[in-house]
């Protein structure tokens, strides 16, 4: 029975390869990877806002080609983040901050090539493990989720948001506030159930509500540029060139660290599926590797494990974040949230039905995840010097160009100048929020999921005639709700513990 199921998945996967392997799609894959690495390398452009900016360009494409290109941008950005971390000690992406701890010291010791090879290879391994998990687990989750009613969906959404509060590094109250702001912004405009106008205060321009793409471009793009400007960065980096010899020598060494790698994969997959995302996964994995290592004193001074652990976990988390997005319609990371927004725009309803109704799309995407990561690995290993050269372009040129790109991206979402203005406002917000430790990811997720969460909540309330008991009425919804409440109470428990110790 299980064997049959697996055969089924492998069959589907091969059909997916047939979809992904067509010439145009391989072209989109390559374009995506190159753009992705570029985005990952440049400050101010990251996975989430990079995909958001390029999303309007895909409106005319077939959804399958579009998702292949956009997800490849995501993989590319994950790879690209490591380059700047190791060579320049500047994390191009938040999830590569932990890579700077040991990657940059390695480069200082003249081992940049080893560090880069180790980073790229571990990213690849992390992604591969996560894709394997997606391949075999996602159809099961989707099948399981077919039985979900509104209370179960709301419970899962509650779990998503509760685990943000429970797991976040930022103060829980601020996480809650950022999230509620996202929900509030999502509620602005026409209420889809009753057709009432909400919170528009007579402003016609608010009828459509706030578009999360604009928020993402502003919060992550403009916000990041403002922060970078403030640091007055002068990019000084090490030479990055990888010879075949470096690659082969590093590869010979890597199997020694299989245990670190395996742990990192597990942490990454877990954090990706529960919406922790790539950034906390990389930190957690780095911390665990250090704690378990026989030589923790080497960490921070150029230990290769200190590169393997965060990179593997970040990539595993980034990839597995697509599992809940595809099966439940709940993205595990901001970038997955943007991809989810893309699905909705292309007219696809994410969720369990996607697996039965849009087989080509789903399996084309999954197959492209395998291919995209192989292509990505080859691309980054061979082209590192180029990307390092891009970072030598002074910030006084890069900064205005990125602002222009963000403005164009914001404009093209709805062909509206007001969106460009909104983008700047969100940019200033992103800047202030970063400094005051309000997390951005829950805001974006709440903005994306707001309508969906509200609809499932209201439908549940309709079924139960206003009683909250419905969320514990079935074993399934009940157990998810309880899990969510535990997550929610997690910071309170920590607080009590600290309190009782005095």
């Amino acid at each position, binding site marked *: 029975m299980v064997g049959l199921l697996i055969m089924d998945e492998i069959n589907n996967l091969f059909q997916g390869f047939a979809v992904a392997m067509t010439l145009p799609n391989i072209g989109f894959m390559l374009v995506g990877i190159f753009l992705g690495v570029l985005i990952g390398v440049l400050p101010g452009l990251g996975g989430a806002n990079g995909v958001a900016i390029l999303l*309007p*360009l895909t409106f*005319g494409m077939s959804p399958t080609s579009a998702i292949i290109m956009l997800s490849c941008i995501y993989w590319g950005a994950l790879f690209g983040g490591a380059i700047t971390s190791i060579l320049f000690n500047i994390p191009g992406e938040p999830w590569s901050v932990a890579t700077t701890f040991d990657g940059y010291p390695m480069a200082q010791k003249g081992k940049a090539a080893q560090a880069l090879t180790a980073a790229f290879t571990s990213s690849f391994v992390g992604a591969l493990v996560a894709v394997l998990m997606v391949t075999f687990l996602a159809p099961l989750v989707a099948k399981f989720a077919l039985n979900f009613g509104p209370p179960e969906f709301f419970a899962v959404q509650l779990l998503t948001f509760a685990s943000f509060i429970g797991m976040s590094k930022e103060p829980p*109250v*601020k996480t*809650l*506030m950022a999230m*509620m*702001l996202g*929900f*509030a912004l999502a*509620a602005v405009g026409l*209420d889809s*159930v*009753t057709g*009432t*106008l*909400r*919170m528009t*205060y007579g402003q016609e321009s608010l009828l459509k509500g706030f578009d999360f793409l604009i928020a993402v471009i502003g919060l992550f793009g*403009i916000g990041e*540029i*403002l*922060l970078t*400007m*403030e*640091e*007055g960065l002068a990019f000084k980096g090490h030479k990055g060139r990888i010879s075949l010899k470096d690659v082969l020598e590093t590869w010979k060494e890597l199997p020694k660290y299989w245990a670190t790698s395996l742990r990192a994969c597990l942490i990454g997959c877990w954090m990706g599926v529960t919406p922790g995302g790539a950034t906390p996964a990389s930190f957690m994995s780095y911390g665990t590797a250090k704690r378990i290592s026989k030589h923790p004193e080497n960490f921070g001074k150029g230990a290769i494990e200190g590169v393997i652990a965060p990179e593997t976990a970040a990539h595993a988390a980034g990839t597995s974040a697509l599992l809940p997005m595809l099966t439940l319609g709940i993205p595990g990371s901001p970038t997955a949230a943007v991809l989810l927004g893309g699905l909705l725009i292309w007219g696809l309803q994410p969720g369990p039905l996607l697996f039965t109704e849009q087989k080509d799309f789903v399996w084309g995407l999954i197959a492209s995840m395998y291919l995209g990561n192989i292509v990505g690995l080859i691309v980054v290993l061979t082209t590192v010097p180029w990307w390092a050269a891009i970072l030598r372009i*002074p910030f*006084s*040129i890069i*900064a*205005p*160009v990125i*602002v*222009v790109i963000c*403005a*164009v991206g914001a*404009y*093209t979402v709805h*062909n509206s*100048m007001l969106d*460009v*203005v909104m983008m*700047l406002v969100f*940019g*200033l917000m992103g*800047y*202030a*929020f970063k*400094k*005051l430790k*309000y997390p951005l990811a829950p805001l974006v997720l709440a903005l994306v999921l707001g309508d969906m969460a*509200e609809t499932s*909540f*209201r439908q549940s*309330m*309709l079924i139960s005639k*206003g009683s909250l008991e419905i969320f514990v009425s079935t074993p399934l919804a009940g157990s998810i709700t309880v899990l969510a409440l535990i997550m929610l109470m997690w910071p309170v428990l920590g607080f009590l513990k600290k309190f009782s110790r005095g």
Partner: protein
Amino acid sequence: MKTNSHLQMRWMELLVAACFMGVSLLVITDSIRVGKAWGADGPEPGYFPFYIGCLLFGGAAWVILQTLRGWKQDDGEESFAQNHEFRLMLLMLIPSAAFTVSIYVVGIYLASLIFIAAFMVWQGKYSYLKSIAVGTGISAALFALFEIWFTLPLPKGWIETWLGF
């Protein structure tokens, strides 16, 4: 660092929390207006946002209380941004805002050209020739990409009309 040469964290904390509180009040007021209770055919439109607004208000109040409670111990040393850092940030923000306004006036292509070239001359101390060359190159690339390749029209001004587009 002297206390007066930076923006204090505690003031910014209060300011942002106050903004949150303002937003929460807007949300709550409007939710009450559209009805936050249980209507004839189920929850009214303000049902869900009302509680969102309340949570937002509670969170903001908590942050304000915490900041005020720690006010005495915190002697204002913790900085949100040093003054020179904040100036650098404004040096990016204000030109970006000016760029946005100029899109309305001259269209996005010319605005980008001017913005990039001016920023390069002003912040990067590049020569006029080099700056204008880079600005023109980027604008032309954008034009080729959007108007010609993707045929997604961006806001245009008199110069594009003059050139015959």
